[in-house]
């Protein structure tokens, strides 16, 4: 049973609009975020009638030339070639969206930024001379302007469909910038930090994952990166006072978003100052 709205609200369906041409690119990454595209298409096959994936090597070898309406970039910049290629990509995409922890903060491979690249290369490769790489792994936004970031390791398929829907109709994507705590509370999940003493990065991490780790009794490890106003120092001082070893806290922030500025600063603070245990007489 439906109730028609007043006639003046009735509008005709919009005239046929050209489907956006979409490109999906890979940099230094594990391909997991690209696989989320395939999962999203599996959940919403109608996506294929709304956009044209014309450059998406994870899905098809057939590539159409640019320019593209929307470019999604997975992965971080780790080579001089990457740094050049992302500039070309920026030029051929009207809207550029970075996806996942690698593209938005540098990824787990950004842990190299704290070490010596020559030592890593020598330890890993039989012929280090063949390796041409940068000393750092950095986020795409450190190289070119980015229109929107989708966080996560991997990204959430629901958020991916949301941003595609938003870009198709030309509205602002609705992606929360609050903490994971807001999602735990909305789900009715009991706080693992307060009720079980599990160190959880939820209070300083951006929502979007539907609090998947705390819902399964685990602490959040920050894969969606920092929330809009993160206070890592206060959180970790509290965990340390409750007996969590400083090494554990350092490992927690030294993860897939280690190079995100708030996490980076906290990792450096934890490494540079004595912990409660060491400071105790």
């Amino acid at each position, binding site marked *: 049973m*439906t109730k028609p709205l007043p006639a003046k609200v009735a509008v005709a369906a919009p005239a046929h609009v050209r489907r956006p041409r979409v490109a999906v690119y890979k940099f230094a990454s594990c391909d997991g975020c690209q696989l989320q595209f395939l999962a999203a298409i599996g959940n919403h096959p109608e996506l294929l009638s709304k956009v044209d994936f014309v450059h998406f090597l994870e899905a098809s070898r057939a590539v159409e030339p640019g320019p593209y309406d929307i470019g999604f970039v997975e992965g971080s910049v780790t080579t001089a070639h990457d740094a050049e290629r992302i500039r070309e990509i920026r030029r051929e995409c009207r809207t550029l969206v970075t996806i996942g922890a690698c593209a938005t903060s540098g990824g787990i491979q950004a842990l190299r930024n704290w070490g010596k690249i020559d030592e890593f290369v020598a330890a890993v490769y039989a012929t280090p001379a063949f390796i041409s790489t940068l000393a750092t792994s950095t986020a795409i936004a450190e190289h070119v302007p980015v229109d929107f970031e989708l966080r996560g390791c991997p990204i959430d398929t629901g958020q991916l469909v949301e941003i595609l829907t938003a870009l*198709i109709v030309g509205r602002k994507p609705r992606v929360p910038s609050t903490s994971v705590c807001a999602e735990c509370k909305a789900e*009715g999940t009991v706080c693992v930090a307060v009720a079980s003493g599990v160190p959880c990065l939820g209070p300083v991490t951006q929502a979007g994952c539907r609090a998947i780790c705390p819902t399964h009794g685990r602490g959040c490890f920050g894969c969606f990166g920092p929330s809009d106003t993160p206070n890592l120092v206060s959180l970790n001082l509290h965990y340390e006072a409750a007996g969590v070893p400083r090494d554990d806290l350092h490992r927690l922030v030294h993860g897939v978003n280690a190079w995100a500025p708030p996490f980076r600063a906290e990792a450096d603070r934890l490494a540079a100052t004595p912990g409660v245990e060491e400071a105790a007489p």
Partner: protein
Amino acid sequence: MPTPVRQIGDRVILAPEALQRLIEVLALEYRVIGPTVADGAVVLRDLASADDLPTGWIDEQEGGHYRLHRDESAGPFDHVVGPHSLKNFLFPPREPIARFERVAGVWEECAPAAPERPLAVIGMRGCDLAALAIQDRVFLRGDSGEGEAIDPAYQRRRNGLFLVAVDCRRAAATCFCHSTGSGPAACSASAGRQADLALVDLGPGPTDRVAPGGGPRRYECRIGSARGAAVIDAIAADLPLWPSPPEDVAAAERVPVDLERAMWAREGSGGGPGRSLDMENIRDLLYSNLEHPRWLEVADRCLSCTNCTLVCPTCFCASVTEVADLSGDAVTRERHWASCFSLDHARMHGTSVRHTTASRYRQWLTHKLGGWIDQFGTSGCTGCGRCITWCPVGIDLTAEVAAIRETPAPSTGGVP
């Protein structure tokens, strides 16, 4: 319908089998919610039987700290409030409020979903009922000159709500309802705290009236409504129920009196143990200290994570968004919880007006304890202590208010 045997104000003794029968009788008509243990805490969930109640569990609460401990002597209601409250059910975290579909180019509003089963909630305390009375003022505001403001979804659930109150027999270290006038007595006619049935756990004890063998726990039950009387009549159809003898009525009435005395006696400074909140002139105290350095100090600790507002049984902020599907031919208008601790909450024409955590904490506390009095004629705090326990770093509003009260630093600008 048979003529009710019992009347409002009648009192009966319920044995454990009657508690089980109470759940069964309520389940005939209601979705029955009550306390149960899950994931290391006492939460509110659907109850299938009295066995689901948290019998034998005691909670330990402090700022940022909650643990359950096994205590074989503990009854089913010897815990105090956990992270959930009536708010989770009457004002759910997410709720569709309208849906529109485009059919042949014309937008039509879909008929609302079929009404849910009415709720019966067991085990509500003084602070829970105080919070309900406050939320009623927010969502069911009558016309007081500013126009009527009735939330239809809240009103529908509220009208169907059956409440079984239970008096607390102990207080957590985070409880301070005695100082906010919201407990510990569950019901108080003068304070607008009412329930259909009000139970007091008299504990295990020998009695020849209920259990000739002695021992089982007894609950002294006061009937608070005609619906409550009908439920007790239905229980009495299957089980013998005795009117409460005067000594049991006296024992039941002593429970909240003794607890309140104990809560005042343990009182220390703000920050506990023995927390209290001095409500005297609290609105003007906060309004005249808007530039107090304490706001910056608490901001160093505050995570702006939104937990305090989401566990608060009275915080009512929500945001409304239109959720369209990919076809563009269907849109759901959805209401979901929001919090003044998020940057987006105060975003307008492109920027947020509360960039700092200090400004957000001040907004929350001055609204909760000041602005509410102006808007709703009551403070928004019930002394339940949830915001203290479930703050990941244990920030304690009683300590924050006490600090401002001790060293007032009146600002010159006056109330904004």
